[in-house]
């Protein structure tokens, strides 16, 4: 319990620093016009986007590692990110800008959701969503879409496409208020779904037969959780592209501290995932300012060594 309170306090401090202190200190109690302009139009939306994305990725990773019973699972393993990237890129090449500012995120969202559905259909056999089939389908579809994307990129000289690629690979600098309400709704809906079925997730980790014996329908539980992951991952990719590391490693790190009970693991993965991405983004836009380092690079540079250190000391999912 003490650890959880400590985590919450640290998170609040990091958020405060990100909004008011870095890269330039702005006194929240003595705001002038420029100060409030910077905070409300630039920093606040960016901080909110990073929290939303990080939380969605952290929870999705935690769910998928349990759902697929595989410590290597992360939100992108189901091919959702490749789907998002491909539709965004293809849309830009063939259809150009249709919905203005919303074009890339909307295309990415459509791609992500349809990839999720395709993987779900491929993973369905004999009345159940089988973990191994879902994994293999995700990897197969991911490879297919990535290679089509490579093909598109090699035959296209479009400048807009290049920009879209940068955005898709994790660039939070475009964050503004316009997308936040949509991201918030979908991510929150996905999160609520997962919390609603959290006992089913715990039971599924013990195996489908035990989950059944405890009164759950493995197919129904897995389907609802799969939808929840699809919503959260698709929204996260649409908000700011593909940020690695968080979905794979944050859930493992949380397990070290609070154990594996998903009733604690999911909310804390959201909290720490969100805070961590926010912190990484703040560092990325500060240390070599005015040049920005993409948040995904910072998350990996800080997080991976820490994760490796933990791996030396403890076991991860039994290995």
């Amino acid at each position, binding site marked *: 319990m003490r650890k959880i309170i400590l985590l919450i306090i640290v998170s609040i401090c990091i958020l405060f620093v990100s909004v008011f202190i870095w890269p330039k200190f702005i006194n929240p109690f003595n705001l002038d016009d420029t100060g409030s302009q910077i905070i409300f139009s630039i920093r606040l939306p960016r901080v909110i986007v990073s929290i939303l994305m990080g939380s969605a990725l952290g929870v999705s990773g935690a769910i998928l590692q349990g759902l697929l019973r595989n410590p290597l699972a992360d939100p992108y393993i189901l091919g959702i990110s490749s789907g998002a990237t491909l539709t965004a890129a293809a849309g830009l090449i063939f259809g150009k800008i249709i919905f203005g500012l919303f074009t890339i995120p909307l295309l990415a969202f459509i791609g992500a959701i349809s990839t999720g559905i395709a993987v779900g259909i491929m993973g369905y056999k004999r009345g159940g969503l089988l973990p191994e089939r879902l994994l293999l389908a995700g990897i197969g579809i991911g490879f297919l879409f990535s290679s089509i994307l490579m093909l598109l990129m090699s035959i296209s000289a479009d400048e807009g496409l290049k920009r879209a690629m940068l955005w898709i690979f994790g660039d939070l600098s475009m964050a503004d208020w316009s997308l936040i309400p949509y991201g918030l709704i979908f991510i929150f809906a996905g999160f609520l779904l997962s919390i609603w079925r959290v006992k089913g997730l715990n039971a599924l980790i013990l195996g489908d*037969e035990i989950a059944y014996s405890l009164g759950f329908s493995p197919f129904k539980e897995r389907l609802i959780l799969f939808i929840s992951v699809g919503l959260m991952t698709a929204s996260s990719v649409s908000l700011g592209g593909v940020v690695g590391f968080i979905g794979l490693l944050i859930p493992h790190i949380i397990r070290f501290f609070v154990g594996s009970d998903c009733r604690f693991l999911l909310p804390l993965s959201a909290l720490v995932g969100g805070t961590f991405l926010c912190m990484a983004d703040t560092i990325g836009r500060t240390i070599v300012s005015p040049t920005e380092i993409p948040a995904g690079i910072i998350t990996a540079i800080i997080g991976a060594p820490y994760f490796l250190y933990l791996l030396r000391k403890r076991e991860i999912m039994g290995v």
Partner: protein
Amino acid sequence: MGILDLKKISFSYNRKGFIKDLSISVNGGEFIGLLGANGSGKSTLLKLSAGILAPQMGEINLWNKPLHQYKGKDRAKLLSYLPQMLDINVPFRVRELVSMGLYPYDILPQLSPEEAIKMVGLGEKTDSFITELSGGERRRVFIAMTLLQGAGILLLDEPLANLDIKYQIELIRLLRNLRDIKNISVVMALHDINMAFQFDCVYIVKDGMLIASGEPHEIIASELLKDAFDIDVTISDIFHPLKPLK
């Protein structure tokens, strides 16, 4: 009419018939051992009884109502199943895992997770990670979860596998105590013929069919057992650790 009735069920994984026209009735407080060689159909029979597999023919009734008509939670309060393979790679703590036995319930039951853990002799490991325990200890953790689930019928697939002899005997004792106090019924797949003496009734399964049933002393001596296991059986009247309980 028993509390769990399998009436003339048939089931096959693919075209080939596997369980053929099989009927079993489990009564309240009954202690049933399923004996049979590997691949004889014991596990399939238990999965059918638990509702995990659905028979292609015949019907299964739980308390006189078709098993498939139960809602998951309602069924879980009456019937629980523990598979043979317990493969878990997520480091749950013992207490967390055992507590999942309470999932079918909205109100707190008579038994607490701690008590269930003590019953299987793991009181000192309540806060250990399951991934740090031995195979036998893990099995006991799952058994504690099943006990906490508190169903009246326990379907256990080879629960004695990889348990030390001490815990094999203690588990049988524990289940028999529960039978005496709460009138639970137990159906247990076995492959150790010696353990069959601890049951009220033994069924021999071969090629998906029941080839014999009755009291262990009659069954073990019969030619049919030799047939089922393809071995010679000699009964010697040696002291058996559990015999005094009989």
